């Protein structure tokens, strides 16, 4: 990530039209801009357009950038504004109303049949089939990343948005709440469900695979 200390210099270089400075920034953020845009718009091509438009917005807005937020936060704010505007223009309804009340239908993190009965005389609600530790080398495999990517893709839209920003892009919970207009609690509920499902998918994959 671009160091905060070097940020002022970078901004000054960009204002002066320094191509190397722009290249640094583009290499750092462009792939992430495209992925985040993809959360809002329906196609990869549209996401790439939004990212390109964001860079134009960055260049045009440079003179107004005052460093009150980090450069990174500022760039992503430009991106989410463009992406939201575009989604509305294209008549794509964002699932934001669903974001407001994620807790209405309960969803257990782990299938109920993995646990003993809540009335079990000795071990109420304890594991019937315990999770087994995963082999480290399997976690390093490219295939495992593929399984996680697929599991995230299969999530309901709102859960996918939250886990993509938090765990894939590494945003803070405040950044995610601001980008998606979510309360702290709702963000946590969505993240919890998303992580639980992705873990379950990974467990299913790793247990069928080896032992």
């Amino acid at each position, binding site marked *: 990530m671009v160091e905060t200390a070097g940020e002022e210099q970078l901004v000054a270089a960009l204002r002066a*039209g320094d*191509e190397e400075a*722009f*290249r640094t920034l*583009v*290499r750092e953020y*462009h*792939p*992430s801009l495209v*992925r985040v845009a993809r959360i809002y718009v329906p196609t990869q091509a549209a996401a*790439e357009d939004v990212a*390109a438009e964001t*860079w*134009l917005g960055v*260049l*045009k807005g440079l003179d107004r950038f005052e460093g009150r937020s980090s450069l990174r936060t500022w760039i992503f704010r430009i991106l989410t504004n463009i992406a939201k505007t575009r989604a509305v223009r294209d008549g794509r309804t964002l699932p934001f109303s669903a974001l407001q009340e994620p807790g209405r239908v309960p969803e*257990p*993190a*782990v299938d*109920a049949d993995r*646990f003993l009965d*809540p009335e079990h005389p000795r071990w*109420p*609600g*304890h*594991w019937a089939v*315990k*999770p*087994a*530790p*995963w082999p480290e080398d399997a*976690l390093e495999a490219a295939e*495992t*990343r593929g399984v*996680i*990517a697929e599991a*995230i893709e299969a999530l309901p839209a709102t859960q996918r948005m939250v*886990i993509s920003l938090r*765990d*894939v*892009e*590494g945003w803070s*919970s405040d950044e995610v709440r601001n980008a998606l207009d979510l309360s*702290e609690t709702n963000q*946590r509920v969505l*993240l*919890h469900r998303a*992580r*639980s499902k*992705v*873990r379950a998918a*990974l*467990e299913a994959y790793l247990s069928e695979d080896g032992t």
Partner: protein
Amino acid sequence: MSQQVEQLSCREFVELVTDYLEGALPGEERLRFEQHISRCDGCTAYLEQIRQTVAVAGRLTEDALSPDAERALLDAFRGWRTT
């Protein structure tokens, strides 16, 4: 602490994992959560799996910028600079 707190079942434990990792569990619940881990290897493995899931998800971002995309963006930059 020798305080007797009501025990958490594994089924309840898995629903608190995200709150725990987000630092959102109030003091007494965090205590119950940590006491549970200290004597349950199933839930210890579960918590570790959630951490591993998060870590692997964070490695999905290793795609680099394609040379074509970089060229197009730098062209746009040059265009902007000369206007």
